[in-house]
């Protein structure tokens, strides 16, 4: 790692920047414009969020708060748990633990820094992670390996059985940093009684582990409060998802990342509820007048991302959708599998409910909710089996009336790169033009955004979509 990179604590660097960014819009529009002149490197990304109005600003505030929590956790006597995007942080909040979602941190760094997370990713390799490992963890973890972050206290993930590279990155980190580690393990099926019971038994073991790490027993009253907040959030998401099916959709592309970034960081917290309320309110206003959420106001095409988005500098990926009148119909990360959502009706056993009536029901609720987060839900078993990737994608594509589908991932996604060609072949047979992006969602050195954009445009042109 370049010596100058070691001069700055990474958490402090990101935290300070996000803190400043979240306040840029506090001034008058003229003052905001003037501020942009003083932050030329960050102008585009700041404009992407601030230009999205109160929702964009609320996202910045959310990230600011996230880093503030990390930076002050130990002062406040809280433990820090490193975790992953497909693990609900709600249990951490119920147990007064500060969570860190590694993939989100890597994505944020990529969106904000001109050199992305390249130096930290490379340091991850120096530390021992293979260069072929997933860049989504390797970026943020590199900063941790270099000792540039607030030390984590323990590690929790839930990807064994679903994603080797994810589970392996966390297992490696536990050994490299000598931290306690617990991983939930998911069977290859979802929805039958046997796997449901396994989820609960494994989750109970996890809570015992976290109790041992914190020295505190799980407070069921507090867990109930968090789950009731989740209940409110789920109801709001159901409303938003419902409006998202309309043509034109009232949601802007940036709202999709807000939906899942909020869930990955603040599920069960009022901050996320507030963000969802803002998204729902703004969407309702547009629905009333039949307006599109796109900046151009004209919805030409509806794209559903069958896996993840592209976290390149300045939010260029989402901006491209906005500027080209393409509606982002969400992806595996943004959609939601609560039992009150229409598309889950076609997929028996894929949804979860929330029941706070007893400790046992709460355990069951949170364990099943966790098992239905992105990737661990539908990439666990063979893609063409019941409730898995193909069925889920077809149900979502139909529900959101997608015109075409796009796969994006990282070369480290062994679990999808091993079968994505088969998946795409089947989707095409079902009548969906489908494009495979060959970039790395977190590392522009694999393929530059410009090249990625050209390939996207070529796909839309060749298939007569735009």
């Amino acid at each position, binding site marked *: 790692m370049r010596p100058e990179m070691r001069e700055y604590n990474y958490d402090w660097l990101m935290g300070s920047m996000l803190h400043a960014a979240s306040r840029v819009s506090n001034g008058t529009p003229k003052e905001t414009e003037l501020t942009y002149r003083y932050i030329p490197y960050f102008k585009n990304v700041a404009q992407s969020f601030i230009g999205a109005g109160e929702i964009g600003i609320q996202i910045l505030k959310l990230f600011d708060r996230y880093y503030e929590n990390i930076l002050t956790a130990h002062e406040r006597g809280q433990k820090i748990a490193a975790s992953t995007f497909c693990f609900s942080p709600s249990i951490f909040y119920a147990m007064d633990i500060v969570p860190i979602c590694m993939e989100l941190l890597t994505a944020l760094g990529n969106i904000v820094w001109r050199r992305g997370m390249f130096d930290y990713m490379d340091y991850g390799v120096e530390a021992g992670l293979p260069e072929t490992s997933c860049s989504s963890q390797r970026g943020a973890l590199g900063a941790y390996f270099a000792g540039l972050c607030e030390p984590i206290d323990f590690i929790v993930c839930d990807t*064994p059985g679903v994603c080797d590279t994810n589970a392996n990155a*966390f297992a490696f980190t536990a050994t490299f940093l000598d931290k306690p580690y617990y991983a939930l393990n998911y069977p290859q099926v979802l929805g039958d009684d046997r796997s449901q019971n396994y989820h609960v038994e494994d989750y109970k073991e996890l809570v015992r582990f976290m109790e041992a790490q914190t020295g505190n027993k799980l407070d069921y009253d507090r867990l109930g409060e968090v789950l009731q907040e989740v209940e409110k959030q789920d109801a709001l998401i159901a409303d938003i998802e419902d409006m998202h099916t309309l043509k034109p959709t009232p949601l802007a592309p940036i709202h999709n990342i807000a939906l899942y970034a909020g869930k990955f960081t603040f599920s069960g917290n009022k901050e996320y509820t507030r963000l969802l309320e803002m998204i729902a309110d703004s969407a309702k206003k547009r629905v009333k007048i039949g307006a599109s959420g796109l900046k151009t106001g004209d919805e030409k095409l509806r794209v559903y991302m069958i896996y993840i988005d592209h976290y390149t500098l300045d939010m260029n990926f989402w901006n491209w959708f906005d500027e080209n009148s393409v509606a982002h119909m969400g992806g595996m990360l943004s959609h939601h599998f609560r039992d009150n959502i229409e598309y889950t009706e076609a997929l028996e056993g894929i949804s979860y409910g929330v029941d706070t009536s007893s400790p046992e029901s709460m355990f069951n609720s949170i364990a099943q909710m966790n098992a239905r987060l992105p990737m661990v839900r539908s990439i666990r078993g063979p893609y063409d089996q019941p409730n898995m990737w193909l069925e889920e994608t077809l149900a979502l594509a139909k529900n959101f009336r997608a015109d075409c589908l796009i796969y994006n991932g990282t070369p*480290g996604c062994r679990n999808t790169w091993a079968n994505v060609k088969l998946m795409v072949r089947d989707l095409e047979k079902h009548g969906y033009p489908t494009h495979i992006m060959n970039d790395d969602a977190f590392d522009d050195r694999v393929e530059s955004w410009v090249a990625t954009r050209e390939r996207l445009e070529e796909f839309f042109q060749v298939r007569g979509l735009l």
Partner: protein
Amino acid sequence: MDTFYDAATRVRNKPILKWKEEGRSVVGYTCSYVPAEIFHAADILPIRLRGIETDGMDIGDTYYGPFICSFPKCILQLAGKGMFDFLDGAVITPGCDAMRRLDECWRKAGEDYEGILPSYFYYFDVPHKTEPHGMQWFVKEIRNLIDSVERHFDVRITDEKLKTAIRAYNQGRKLLQTVEDLRSQAEIKVSGTDVFAATVASTVMPRGEFTADLEKWIQSIKQNKPLKNGQKRLMLVGSISDEIDLVELVEKDNHAVVVAENLCFGARYESNQIPENGNPVQALAEHYLGKSVCPRMYGKYKERLGFLKDKIECAGVDGVIMQNIRFCDLHGAENALFERDLEAMGIPCLRIEREYGPLIETGRIKLRINAFLERIS
């Protein structure tokens, strides 16, 4: 020894073809978590699926994506070329992401290439933990597999038959442990290549035949003269390998001898005998899952390091060669940790990333091995 080499270096080897000529069934499996005893108990020949003898990757690359380990791709390639047409069944396990996707890739290739998919095609779910609920899951998976085999092949797998199969496999394990003890001695009488050929052969030969041949071979090893003095004693660890050529390459110039391995196909569970009394399904589960030293069992690095250290001490190892197949993150990352910890203990290590297959990188790998040998000389 010729039988072992034939079995270890040919997909369609003599013992398998002879078994088929007798009208008996053969089932292939992809991972060390599958209890071969189940098939033995049903008079079915269980064989580990392998990727040797590939001469291209056109089929493997068609169904798998580009960022995938070449081992399962080679298996798919062979399947697509009809090299596994003797199989009556196949069992796929989630050993790793690339291997578990062989299920989908093979099935889909079977839609395009007629007759390449065995009539019995089974997905065997193996958990990643040994806590009580993990073990319980695995026990149920074994029972489901037994039921499925009974139904498809119209056989009956009783507890008694399973116990007999466990005894037969234990006997082979005991003999392989004897070989391990022999190769660990100060005076080495057997090459690592020969030992590896025998252990690989154990995964594809009928157990009774293998055990009988092994017993004879052990007697002949004892009569052997010691190998040349001054050879470095090496250990080979890392990603899955059934390539005799790789061990041969290490030993080629007589500067080194491989005295131990920790490879999926190598000898590593031999000291573990499966209890022959009691509940055989539980015993199989506790052996195959509970005793696993594979990095897919996350969070057990210290146990695996301890296992490695024991082998290093026992076999008087001078240096460790750690290889991982490209895109095998599990072994790639763990090799880095092993290197860090073993080097700190004064044990020289060499880390190599490579492709699986018919030694397409012989020159590069040999160069690095030679440099390593110079370093430890």
